[in-house]
């Protein structure tokens, strides 16, 4: 069996983003970029499925500029077998990305397609679900456990107020949440080996996907700043302020 993992190059989670002074977008100039943390969990899960003998091949795919090769190499160093980059410089709208990925899925025919539940830059949380719809698959978002039994994928997922288990037929789309696993670090020998693993580049225009602009970014602003608070010296002072100044209790 083959698992395809879709990954995104995104701002490093430890970097605090700044808004450009002209309000046109955030400023990513010279900012450290990484594999989106939820995509890293998806890659880790794929590798674990391979280590357990459930799947035999782990293919990673990204849609983006040639800079995304760096994140694909990271996934290869973690243990993926080969990588594909759908190269485009256009803005990465979820539906367009989903259409490119559907074309890749047509070609690769994986039995499982893993995603991070969302990227920490645009936080759309859409692409996996859109791919599932486009290819007619069942989906399990926010996965916290994945197993394979009797020809189906059994996925436990986090939902409002608790958890839910669903069974998906093959091929299935699963988006990964925080508690699915804790990703490993790539070892130096594996980083060296990853440089020799196959990384194929596909021109986005060559895939025959019908993409277009659906949303237009008009402005990006910084959120309103909270005004500075005060230190209170005791519990009784705190309760007094909450009662008489803020009026919330």
């Amino acid at each position, binding site marked *: 069996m083959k698992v395809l993992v879709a990954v995104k190059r995104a701002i490093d989670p430890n970097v605090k983003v700044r808004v450009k002074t002209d309000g046109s977008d955030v400023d990513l100039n010279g900012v450290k970029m990484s594999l989106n943390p939820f995509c890293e969990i998806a890659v880790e899960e794929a590798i674990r499925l391979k280590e357990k003998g459930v799947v035999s091949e782990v293919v990673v795919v990204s849609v983006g500029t040639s800079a995304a090769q760096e994140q694909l190499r990271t996934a290869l160093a973690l243990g993926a077998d080969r990588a594909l980059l759908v190269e485009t410089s256009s803005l990465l709208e979820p539906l367009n990305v989903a259409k490119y990925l559907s074309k890749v899925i047509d070609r690769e025919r994986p039995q499982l397609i893993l995603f991070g539940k969302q990227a920490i830059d645009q936080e759309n949380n859409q692409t996996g679900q859109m791919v599932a719809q486009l290819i007619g698959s069942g989906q399990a978002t926010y996965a916290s456990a994945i197993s394979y039994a009797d020809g189906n994928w059994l996925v436990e997922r986090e939902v409002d107020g608790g958890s839910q288990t669903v069974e998906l*037929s093959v091929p299935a789309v699963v988006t990964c949440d925080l508690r699915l696993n804790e990703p490993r670090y790539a070892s130096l020998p594996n980083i060296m080996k990853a440089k020799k693993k196959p990384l194929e580049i596909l021109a986005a225009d060559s895939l025959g996907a019908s993409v277009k602009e659906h949303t237009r970014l008009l402005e990006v602003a910084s959120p309103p700043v909270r005004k500075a608070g005060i230190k209170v010296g005791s519990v009784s002072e705190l309760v007094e302020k909450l009662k008489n100044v803020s009026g919330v209790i």
Partner: protein
Amino acid sequence: MRTLVIAEQVAGQLTAGTLSAITAAVELGLETDLLVIGGQDAVAAAEQAAFIQGVHRTLLAQGAVFEKILPENVQPLISSVVAEGYTHVLADASSLGRSVLPRVAASLDVGMLSDVSKIVSVDTFQRPIYAGNAIATFQSLDPVKLLTIRSSAFAQAATQQNRGDVTVVDGGKIATNVRFVAEQLTISERPELSSARVVVSGGRGMQSKENFAFVERVADKLGGAVGASRAAVDSGFAPNDLQVGQTGKIVAPELYIAVGISGAIQHLAGMSGSKVIVAINQDAEAPIAQVADYMLVADLFEALPALEKAL
């Protein structure tokens, strides 16, 4: 132009997030219909919906197929209702809304905007990006605009005396690619985290699952919900559905009390919209101090019992 709000109901009650999505829909200034989907109990939810201010007509899709709502089963229904002439489709950005609406978007070949926090006009919307560190304004260019709504950014719609129309609609089918197996829902006497007036959250500083009882007792005294930081959840002190933050619940209560929470960016993204923020922490330099209205530097295990007593 017409708006359709996809309702969510639990045991015959519309969720708080649905009521917020209705408020967002009303701000669009268009005629607003509500689609209630479910098994037997959806009938009661539709009856409740008929008395909500701003709802023109309630559409009820009730059937055994919707007893357990799966995105694969409801997407065909929603897509066919939308095709009857709706230009705007809104849903709460709940785990269900976020799972279903992208499928509807793909089926209609339109884009979607997630977690909308402000309606600027009928085609322009604001939403937080980068963990709330930036607010983006987007214009939707599609003939049908699909939005999930950040419930903490909109008040809940009120009820009215007059009963609106309820119309039964058919649709939906049992998908063959997915099967519901089981669910474990947390039963709680406390108010729902994302719509509670008061939230008391504990962090890594609580040190153990047992110590979380200190947080719970203060929450109960205030009639509030209990929350937790990601660190507390990862350490097993609290269940994951209590997590407040970028990747958990987004809350904006009247009063948020953060106990033993340092204030990582990802936590602040989930609660900095609260009206009044209190931080109780041993460390005066913790980043939570930057957003707190009141900072109490104290031993948590002395401060919490004292607070419980003083309330």
